[in-house]
């Protein structure tokens, strides 16, 4: 394993030092592992807190700032943050209007955010939660932990963040977050596994002509292994899975997301195919992101996330945002 790190034990702390040095618009509490908006708490504004395991950068720290998150809590690599950390972030961003927790649906994230919400409630902070579970690769049934939260997290953070910035109350901000999640679907594909610093070896093995379909964002194997093929065909598999679950139509927000090790060139090639697929279905990619937004360390592959827009959602998407990884209008 070759990585640009100082020590396996210090990757999260060293990353946070780098984030602090690079982004004066953020206030980084390295000890408690919290990335705050410098001006948090903002009196009267609903606070937004998200978090999850590290290794998905720029998620979540890269989305802290005006019009998006007020704080992010990075856990160890692929390990959800702990309750104290989340609770400290929650009380730290509460401007009196309550705090929204944006939680990806994994057992660990759910449990730790729940405990944090209890602790924050004890401190008198009103907490609401949006659970993100957009990944169509996992069948939602009694027999699983439910769908995973992946790319739609970014959509929820952006749109709920914009509404919160406009002064909307907690219940409204939570409602729009849930609406975004309900309208969003994702599917991921891996060409290679990833290697966590602690494990030091790839999380799974994949032949030279094999790909994993239906992966999550934690280096876990997907639902099925398949033969590698043209980008066009791979995109069709991914988009069919999405379209089967929620038929694509109308104005659509689309993200083609790299898993961390994928050249941008290939993501554009994928995006071209996604746009063509949407057109076939009578849908249009009216807003889009192409790049590394929700990653799995050094994994090669991509995920595609769609969100069926409404006029309101489009306006909130277009609203100004100023974070390290997403910025426009300011």
């Amino acid at each position, binding site marked *: 394993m070759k990585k640009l790190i100082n020590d396996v034990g210090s990757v999260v702390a060293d990353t946070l030092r780098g984030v602090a040095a690079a982004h004066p618009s953020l206030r980084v509490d390295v000890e408690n592992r919290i990335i705050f908006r410098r001006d948090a708490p903002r009196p009267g504004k609903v606070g937004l807190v998200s978090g999850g*395991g590290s290794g998905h950068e720029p998620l979540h720290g890269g989305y802290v700032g005006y019009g998006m998150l007020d704080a992010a809590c990075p*856990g*160890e*690599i*692929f*390990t*959800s*943050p*702990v*309750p*104290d950390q989340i609770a400290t972030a929650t009380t730290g961003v509460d401007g009196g209007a309550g705090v929204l927790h944006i939680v990806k649906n*994994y*057992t*660990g994230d759910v*449990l*730790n955010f729940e*405990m944090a919400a209890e602790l924050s409630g004890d401190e008198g902070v009103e907490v609401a939660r949006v659970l993100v579970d957009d990944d169509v*690769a*996992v*069948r939602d049934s*009694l*027999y*699983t*932990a439910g769908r*995973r939260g992946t790319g739609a997290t970014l959509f929820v953070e952006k749109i709920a963040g914009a509404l919160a910035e406009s002064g909307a109350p907690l219940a409204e901000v939570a409602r729009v977050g849930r609406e975004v999640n309900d309208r969003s679907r994702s599917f991921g594909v891996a060409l290679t596994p990833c290697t*966590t610093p*602690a*494990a030091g*070896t790839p*999380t*799974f093995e994949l032949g030279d002509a094999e790909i994993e379909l239906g992966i*999550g964002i*934690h*280096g*876990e*194997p997907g*639902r099925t292994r398949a033969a590698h093929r043209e980008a066009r065909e791979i995109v069709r598999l991914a988009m069919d899975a999405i379209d089967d679950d929620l038929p694509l139509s109308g104005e659509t927000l689309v993200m083609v997301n790299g898993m961390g090790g994928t050249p941008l060139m290939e993501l554009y090639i994928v995006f071209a195919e996604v746009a063509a697929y949407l057109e076939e279905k009578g849908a249009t990619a009216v807003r889009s992101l192409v790049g590394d937004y929700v990653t799995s360390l050094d994994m090669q592959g991509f995920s595609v996330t769609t969100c069926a827009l409404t006029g309101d959602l489009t306006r909130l998407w277009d609203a100004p945002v100023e974070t390290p990884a997403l910025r426009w209008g300011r």
Partner: protein
Amino acid sequence: MDTRFFVTWMEEITAAVRAARDHLTRLDAAIGDADHGTNLDRGFSAVAEALAARPPATPGGALVLAGSTLIRKVGGASGPLYGTAFREAGKTLGETPEVSTAELAAALEAGLAGVRRLGGAEEGDKTMVDALAPAVRALARAVHEGGTAGEALDAAAAAAEDGAKATIPLQARKGRASYLGPRSIGHEDPGAASTALILDALRTVGSR
């Protein structure tokens, strides 16, 4: 079993988890996200430090401190679940300075109940419950049958070990492994494996 016994148990777990760290992580790599070994290693190292820094006065105090530390330090699914297990077990013991095998059985049963309540897993879902539940049952049976403490702890450890191995052919229905569907079959659940370690540590301390 006095406070010292419980502190020694925690130290024994710390050592066992350290030794098995990479093994647990490899189990988690197969059907999860390759962090279970480092999660527990980080957690129990912190438990050992906490117990040394703030020596507990009672067995219950030792378990509650261990549980709270796990919740504060581990994260992931196993942090809240193991943390709750130890906290519930500790709270059940109350202020007792000396714990009988029957009291221990009741405490572990409370721990199991905490895991079930929080995680919602049944036996057969391929989680730590598949090791913990048979261990709790074996302990209760041994107490009921009037065996020695040593025999009871042996039975619990053996049952946990068997329960962990029995997760291999199962398809996961809880936790990350459930995302894999049928591909989760054929692998031992990492949380069940670590539960077996924890009960093996209990047997080791009991046999000294």
